[in-house]
């Protein structure tokens, strides 16, 4: 009996010691590792930048709970670049020279990333960036992309799209390409034109508009008049919604339609967007949720995004790329067991990193790896991956209007 009590006491003590030890091991100590970045917290890009802010906060919190990096706590210094690339450049200079941060994290969006890349290059810092849309401009050898669109997306992404359409219920023969002249869009649309010609499809209409175009009525009229089987819309932000609104006014429903980089939440909620196609690197469905850290992140992001009253609390391209960026940086720091930018960059170039997008490599042009863009479609009021088949869930297939 006494033996049992002693044994129980010993077990209890051992458990307590074990818990304490675990707690000590998980409590980071020492000077924090300071990571600096800017985000468009105000200005026209602020709505999307809020996603990146929430993701960064979640990641730093998770990392500190896990014991920090190298046993030290993480501290994220984020400054407001007001959606201005020129200000981003100044603030990154400040982060390096005045705040003397240990590491840099990329800003949002393409213009600001390009500015930050210049500063990072000047000071030989590693820069992992979230959603840089023009890989050919990523010339700095220590810049690493978290958005896996491959080094030649103007070729690979349209090919994936036309493969999906060819495997769908109504393979198109005629295509209308209408596009914004926004830099990260225009070259992708040009790529789509090349690809469709190589595939023997007929381009029945090509139109461009300036970023910030107010009136989509004439564009809708032209599309209707051209009678295409498929409409490729080089859309950014709300272009897709505005074009669909204009189409509705003239009672036109495109047989099949694709939007390159739409604001996901507004488009998916629009009734006219039924069967609209787009691209994605991550959706809240299998098999993406099996990737490392994905399920927990999706749960946390939903909670925080709902509390922050974001229009859409789901994890898709922006949030996934943002979380991936932190995973990449952490992998580099932990593998090299230090904060040396040169060593981190060399390790990332030579190794693969498991992320919520899947396993990434950085040994291609501009440190880009594989094109992991998948085709998704608005079905029953939500985005559903429809191509390739191995990334679909519940037997989802591409639909036509």
């Amino acid at each position, binding site marked *: 009996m006494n033996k049992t009590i002693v044994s129980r006491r010993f077990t209890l003590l051992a458990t307590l010691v074990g818990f304490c030890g675990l707690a000590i091991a998980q409590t980071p100590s020492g000077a924090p590792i300071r990571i600096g970045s800017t985000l468009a917290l*105000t200005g026209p890009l602020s709505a999307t930048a809020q996603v990146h802010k929430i993701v960064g906060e979640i990641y730093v919190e998770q990392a500190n709970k896990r014991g920090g990096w190298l046993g030290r706590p993480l501290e994220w210094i984020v400054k407001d670049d007001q959606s201005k690339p020129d200000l981003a450049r100044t603030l990154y200079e400040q982060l390096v020279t005045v705040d003397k941060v240990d590491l840099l994290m990329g800003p949002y969006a393409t213009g600001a990333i390009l500015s930050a890349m210049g500063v990072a290059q000047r000071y030989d810092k590693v820069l992992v960036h979230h959603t840089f849309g023009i890989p050919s401009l990523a010339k700095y050898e220590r810049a690493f992309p978290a958005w896996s669109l491959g080094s030649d997306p103007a070729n690979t992404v349209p090919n994936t799209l036309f493969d999906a359409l060819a495997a769908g219920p109504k393979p198109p023969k005629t295509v209308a390409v209408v596009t914004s002249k926004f830099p990260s869009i225009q070259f992708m649309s040009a790529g789509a034109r090349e690809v469709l010609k190589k595939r023997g499809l007929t381009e029945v209409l090509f139109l461009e508009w300036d970023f910030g175009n107010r009136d989509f009525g*004439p564009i809708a009229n032209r599309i209707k*008049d051209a009678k295409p089987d498929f409409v490729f819309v080089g859309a950014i932000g709300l272009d897709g919604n505005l074009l669909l609104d204009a189409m509705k006014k003239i009672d036109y429903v495109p047989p099949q339609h694709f939007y390159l980089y739409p604001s996901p939440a507004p488009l998916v909620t629009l009734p006219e967007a039924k069967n609209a196609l787009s691209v994605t690197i991550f959706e809240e469905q299998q098999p993406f949720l099996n990737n490392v850290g994905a399920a927990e992140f999706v749960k946390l992001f939903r909670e925080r995004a709902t509390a922050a009253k974001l*229009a859409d609390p789901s994890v898709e391209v922006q949030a996934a790329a943002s979380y991936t960026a932190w995973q990449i940086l952490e992998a580099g720091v932990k593998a090299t067991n230090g904060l040396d930018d040169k060593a981190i960059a060399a390790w990332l170039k030579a190794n693969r990193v498991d992320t919520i997008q899947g396993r990434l490599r950085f040994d291609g042009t501009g440190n880009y790896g594989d094109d992991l863009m998948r085709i998704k479609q608005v079905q029953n009021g939500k985005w559903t991956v429809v191509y390739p088949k191995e990334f679909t869930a519940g037997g989802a297939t591409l639909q036509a209007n």
Partner: protein
Amino acid sequence: MSGFTMPSATLLAQSILSGVFVGALYGLLGLGLSLSWGLLRLINLAHFAFAFLAAYLCYQMAQVGVDPLLALLIIVPMFFAIGAGLHWGMMKFQITPFNSLLITFGLTGIVEALIQTIWTADYRKLESSYGEHNFKLAGLYVPLPELITLGLAASLSFAVWAVLRYTDLGKALRASAEDAAVAAAFGINQRRNALLLAGACSALASIAGVCLALGFTLAPSQIYAWIGVVFAAVMLGGLGRALAPLIAGVVIGVSEAVAMAVTAPSWAPLVSFTLLIAILLFRPGRAA
């Protein structure tokens, strides 16, 4: 495919109709600006900010079930008071026309920041029953919100024209703009008239704002997207005129729409500004 293409008759007719509708909005936005510039000698860039603020207020009221057109009953008096108050400040500090441009530009930035703080930088779309009603006329689609805009623009332009031409107030305003000293000698209360006119200009901006909300998606940064083309309509029509902004707006709107039908949408601004430059070059007296 990106060069000149011959449009079908239906496409051309539909484009011209779209041009008339958007031109009516240019005219409505330009009406208050033209009156303020021509009769008060104040270049009020905040006119566009007021229009967008009114659009957002209309959007907000629609969220609680207020019909956008009924919202005018609240919005119009509110903006009349704002416009009159702004002009009172301008008069008190004896602001010159050039300085009015700078001050109202600053005010535009403040209003933009205010809108962004309250409604965020996200796009907002007013969903109203008007948006659901389109009808077909001779094979062409006629959206109700755009038709309402055209109706308001035409009726307000004619009403302002009639007031300026046939009423004592209109004659007094024109006289003051022509020669303030002589008008004062005839006993015209210029201060009161100026406040009335400034209030009316802002009220007109607010009506244009409600039309914007009815037909377009709203974003704070969109304030600046309208300035160039509406200035072109005002300059093309001539300052201080009531019907001219509407006519010039429709000319620009139709020119843009036809350009978009036969070439590419990115050519549209080129058309409106080429028209403006041509008019300024060949008829320099019009804009003075």
